[in-house]
């Protein structure tokens, strides 16, 4: 390995970031940015010139998944394996990418051009399965479009302005605009609309996908345009005229990059998208719109954390102010009564939105009362739930609100220093928050003696380096202090003894973002929403097999079925609603039969799930519950910090059993063994990660035990587990040979225009053929 590096570069990095041992993570991040991996020589150099020790740097660099010790390819392909993408076939996409690049071992192709990795939620579940290549996101990727995607990327790359001149946001698709291209839409003038769209997006330099869609079933209202932004509710415009387009575009997409954009590339991109015949538009694009859902969609939600969504420009502090921003903090300073403030929050019934649901007021009270000169405040935005992206959206879209919330809380508890802990994988969130911090500092809303209140608060950003366990307060603090993200036994809780041994308030980003609303509207207004024990609203990432996914904010107490049917528009593709997975890897699968369960902390835990971080993934009859259990457990298992025995070893043993079951190698007694292990892991793990890791398994066993039994008998009722199913081609086959071309192992043969055949011995059940068959002649049994 070529370890020759520019030592001066290392020195510069350490110089600018810091020599104390707590700087280790930012230093590693900066070095990785420079060298694209962490050369050993650089690590050694850091130890020479700072307080960071070899043991520390080696321990930390190998703990966080962001850090790489070997060089990566020129471009990074991140295949999202978040829950939503997973249920929509990201695994197959991942293998297609590997196949397309001819990667057999490891993760980098022979030319060193691409490195492929699976990542937890990219935060754009509405585009599932999503793939990110460097800074470009591709949505709805299918095994048969992988090749096109890579070619497209390479072509565009050729036209790119050198990377360092690009704003972070450049290539990230900001969403998509769907234009009805059904015959009635075309008749209604959609071709003109499309031209107008292209022009407008081009002039704004926005990277937005234009997606032609088939008939949407509202032919009387054509032409139709639907704007889909990841994490936001899709908006449908009916009877659009070309002259409406600029307004629509401006309303949804802002362009805030001062840099020159890639004009040529964008042009080509759009043209290609529009003209590329090979790109089959998947069925799920046809929006089975009925008249009601649009209205219902809006009325069932309640926007508190996401107030002014779709209207508010995220980087415009003035606009935030115009729309009521900073009123709350002014009010708080004016009243100058931290105790009263805490009781207001207590009265509102607000509970932590990060998962555990600890009463926010109580937590504040502990921090306030904890003895200590110095106190810290931390916003936890290290969302790690593979199926959730609301922290990301909140930080990207409402940065001022989150910070205002932190100001309020810091005043209540007496914290003067703080950190926004943001996943490094969320560059846009980092950028927006950084901007917001700068704006607010400039406006005197952060810093010393804010607005003459006598209260001071300085905030900085800390980029999480990729460890789900850092969602756990004590692990988060460990990483802030420059240690491996391993939790400690609590008590003492961080509220008493946290960062640097000082009382530390850790709240989730979403929790902070509802505070201004509560102050402005009063605790009573907030407490009016929700149920007895769970007040207010909760933001969810609604994804999976629903018609409309996206970020939603609903009042507590809404039922699961209401969310699925009224907000999500029901299950997609005419399949049957089977279950929802709530709370991600800590939560559970709730069967459709319990669809009347309300969304509230206690009700969810009574059925074995939990509010968790806000993943809400809808599953249909084609989703195998054993496989779901395996998926979540494989996530927690790989995210286990490895400290305590039950979690480190127990989750591994559980995963082995689940993997066996999915491979048809289950044995009698496996279910009981799983239950026994689950009990140990749940009961004896050190931290929340382990204590909740068995939930997805326990709930699926509880509600779908017969599916587990079927797997032991060698059947997968949902037709999902590769080793338990066979693929065959029916007489409907038209002999187009597309399947044969797509099969990675040449298991399909036949004469053109006659019925093809699959060799079950060779078949690896990648599902490529079934996905590509234009006449649904490939069946699974």
């Amino acid at each position, binding site marked *: 390995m070529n370890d020759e590096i520019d030592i001066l570069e290392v020195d510069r990095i350490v110089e600018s970031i810091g020599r104390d041992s707590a700087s280790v993570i930012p230093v590693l991040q900066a070095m990785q940015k420079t060298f694209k991996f962490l050369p050993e020589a650089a690590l050694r150099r850091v130890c020479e010139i700072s307080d960071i020790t070899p043991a520390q740097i080696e*321990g930390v660099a190998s703990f966080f998944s962001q850090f790489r010790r070997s060089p990566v390819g020129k471009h990074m392909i991140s295949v999202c394996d978040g829950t939503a993408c997973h249920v929509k076939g990201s695994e197959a996409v991942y293998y297609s990418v590997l196949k397309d690049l001819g990667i057999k071992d490891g993760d980098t192709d022979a030319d060193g051009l691409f490195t492929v990795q699976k990542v937890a939620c990219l935060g754009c579940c509405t585009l599932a399965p999503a793939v990110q290549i460097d800074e470009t996101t591709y949505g709805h990727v299918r095994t048969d479009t992988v090749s096109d995607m890579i070619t497209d990327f390479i072509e565009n790359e050729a036209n790119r302005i050198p990377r360092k001149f690009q704003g972070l946001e450049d290539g990230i698709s900001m969403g998509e605009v769907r234009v009805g291209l059904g015959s009635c839409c075309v008749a209604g003038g959609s071709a003109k609309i499309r031209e107008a769209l292209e022009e407008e997006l081009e002039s704004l330099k926005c990277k937005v996908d234009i997606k032609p869609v088939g008939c949407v079933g509202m032919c009387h209202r054509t032409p139709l345009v639907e704007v889909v932004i990841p994490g936001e509710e899709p908006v449908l415009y009916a009877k659009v005229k070309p002259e409406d387009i600029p307004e629509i575009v401006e309303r949804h997409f802002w362009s805030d990059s001062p840099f020159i954009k890639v004009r040529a590339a964008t042009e080509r991109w759009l043209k290609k998208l529009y003209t590329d015949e090979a790109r089959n538009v998947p069925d799920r694009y046809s929006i089975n719109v009925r008249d009601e859902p649009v209205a219902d969609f809006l009325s069932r939600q309640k926007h508190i954390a996401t107030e002014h969504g779709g209207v508010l420009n995220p980087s415009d502090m003035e606009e935030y102010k115009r729309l009521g921003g900073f009123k709350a903090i002014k009010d708080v300073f004016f009243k100058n009564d931290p105790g009263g403030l805490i009781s207001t929050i207590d009265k509102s019934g607000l509970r932590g939105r990060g998962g555990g649901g600890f009463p926010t007021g109580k937590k504040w009270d502990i921090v306030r009362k904890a003895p200590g000169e110095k106190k810290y405040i931390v916003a936890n935005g290290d969302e790690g739930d593979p199926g959730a992206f609301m922290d990301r959206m909140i930080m990207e879209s409402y940065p001022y609100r989150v910070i205002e919330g932190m100001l309020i809380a810091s005043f209540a508890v007496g914290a003067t220093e703080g950190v926004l802990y943001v996943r490094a994988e969320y560059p846009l969130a980092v950028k927006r928050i950084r901007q917001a911090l700068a704006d607010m500092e400039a406006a005197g809303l952060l810093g010393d003696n804010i607005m003459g209140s006598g209260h001071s608060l300085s905030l900085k950003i800390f980029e999480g380096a990729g460890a789900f366990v850092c969602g756990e307060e004590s692990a988060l603090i460990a990483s802030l202090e420059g240690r491996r993200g391993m939790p400690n036994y609590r*008590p003492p809780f961080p509220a008493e003894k946290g960062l640097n041994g000082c009382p530390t308030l850790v709240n989730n980003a979403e929790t902070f973002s509802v505070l201004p609303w509560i102050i402005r509207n009063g605790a009573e207004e907030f407490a009016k929403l929700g149920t007895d024990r769970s007040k207010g609203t909760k933001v969810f990432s609604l994804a999976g097999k629903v018609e409309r996914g996206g970020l939603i904010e609903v009042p507590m107490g809404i039922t699961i079925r209401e969310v699925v049917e009224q907000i999500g528009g029901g299950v997609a593709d005419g399949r049957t609603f089977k279950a929802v997975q709530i709370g991600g890897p800590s939560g559970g699968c709730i069967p459709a039969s319990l669809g009347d369960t309300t969304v509230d902390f206690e009700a969810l835990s009574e059925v074995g799930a939990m509010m968790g971080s806000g993943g809400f993934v809808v599953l249909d009859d084609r989703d195998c519950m054993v496989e779901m259990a395996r998926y979540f457990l494989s996530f927690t298992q790989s995210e286990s910090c490895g400290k305590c025995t039950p979690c480190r070893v127990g989750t591994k043993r559980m995963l082995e059993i689940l*993997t066996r079951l999915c491979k048809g190698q289950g044995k009698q007694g496996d279910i009981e063994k799983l239950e026994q292990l689950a009990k140990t892991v749940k009961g004896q793990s050190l931290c929340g990660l382990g204590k909740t890791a068995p939930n997805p398994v326990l709930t699926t066993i509880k509600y779908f035990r017969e599916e587990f039994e079927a797997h032991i008998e060698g059947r997968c009722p949902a037709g999902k587990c590769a080793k338990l199913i066979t693929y065959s081609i029916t007489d409907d086959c038209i002999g187009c040979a597309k399947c044969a071309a797509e099969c990675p192992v040449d298991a399909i043969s036949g004469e053109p225009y006659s019925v093809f055949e699959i060799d079950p011995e060779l078949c690896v059940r990648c599902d490529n053929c079934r996905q590509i068959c234009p006449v649904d002649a490939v069946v699974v049994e």
Partner: protein
Amino acid sequence: MPELRINGLPAKVDEGATVLDAAELVFVDIPTLCHMKGCEPETSCMLCVVKNVATGQLIPACSAKAVDGMEIDTECAEVQSARRDILNLLLSEHVGDCEAPCTRICPAHLDIPLMLRAIEHGNLESAAWIAKRDLAIPATLGHVCPAPCEKGCRRAQVDEAITIRDLHREVTEGSTEGSVLCFNVFSEKHHFIGLTPKSMTPKSKSVAVIGSGPAGLSCAWKLIQLGYGCTVFDEAPKAGGVLREHNSLPMDVLDDEVDWLAQAGVEFSLGAPISMHEAADGFDGIVFAETEFSGTHFADAFYAEEHKLAVKAVANGKAAAVAVDRFLKGEPPSNKEPFDSKTGKLRESEVQELTKNCATVEQAGMPAPQAEAARCLHCDCRKAVSCKLRKYATQYGANQREFPADERGHVQLIGHDEAVVFEPGKCIKCGLCVKITKRAGEELGVTFVGRGYNTRVAVPFEEALQDGLREAATECVEACPTGALAFRNVEER
């Protein structure tokens, strides 16, 4: 000062004390692996869980602070089974053998690798003693035993099994040139071979052993080692029982060994009809070690069955002696064997890894028995006696197969040329060595590398083990609760 109850016992502790501290105060034992006095608790093994009666929760005693009014249960069934689960999980990823396979297979459990290492280092006297201690009649067995141990010898995976039987015969057979005549040294240097003058003092209790076959002889010898007086009765004029019928056994070998046992303190009453009453009256215990007596029933009699496989008879004799010992001490009978971690069949690469334990360089110039013994792979664990994991696994009746792993980890030896050996497969990630090296200000030290199930302990930048443990090697080896960190050439047994 918080006051709490541990298993109902009141304990008053200082502010900030842990539940473990409180338990110690009232002499309640709580098993710990990752805990060490004077170190911040790691809270990783979770073996020390106890039940907080008020909440019903299991909490780690080493880290949970003692709170006023707390009520702690350290012994209830829930706690016991939780601890067993933890041990079973740890053992499910444990790669190592407490006992070597050869020892395991030998019915009499001769500590073969220990004996071989003594031979290798030219320490033939200790080798002979080990063989005597475990086999009673090692030279005799060296002629008649079919050597099942050699079938289990892992060296066979490299080339050929060690000739274990020949070696334990060679080191103990009086007439062999160059070996040690054990019974000669015995009278002069008995303290050297482990029988201290104290244990040789006249016994308060004595046991009659009926029958002088291999079972009887070994039973008698074991009783002597346990500190009893012992008389062996046989109607035959010479001791040896069925062994006397063996035609491939030179009888002088057997005679020598019987003599040796007599010198060691075993009394013989031979060539006269056995009076049961005499036996029953004059002794505190009685062991029948002959097949024809096995129907006779005496109150408090024990049986050491003879067996056509002499070494099996030897094993039976030892077991009977242990049973008598427990009985005479008023302890309930027990068949609790010490826990024994098993690696199973080794992979090709692992055998190669173990050959690192062999002193190949020196072998060339060694005399025959030494060179042969030096081929031993050292399959047994270097810390089989002090290992806390093994101790608790025995105590809690752990079962290594309770949560079987799909694939077991690799046998790996790190630092084989150095004073300290690290076996990652035995590491339970307690973090003690990481803390100790940090505290000692080691320049490199050791650290955890990786995350989750793949976490391992390593010297930073893959430097040599000795460079990571310049200051704190001894402290680390002593603190390491398992055989993961051990001195290469220090014997515990």
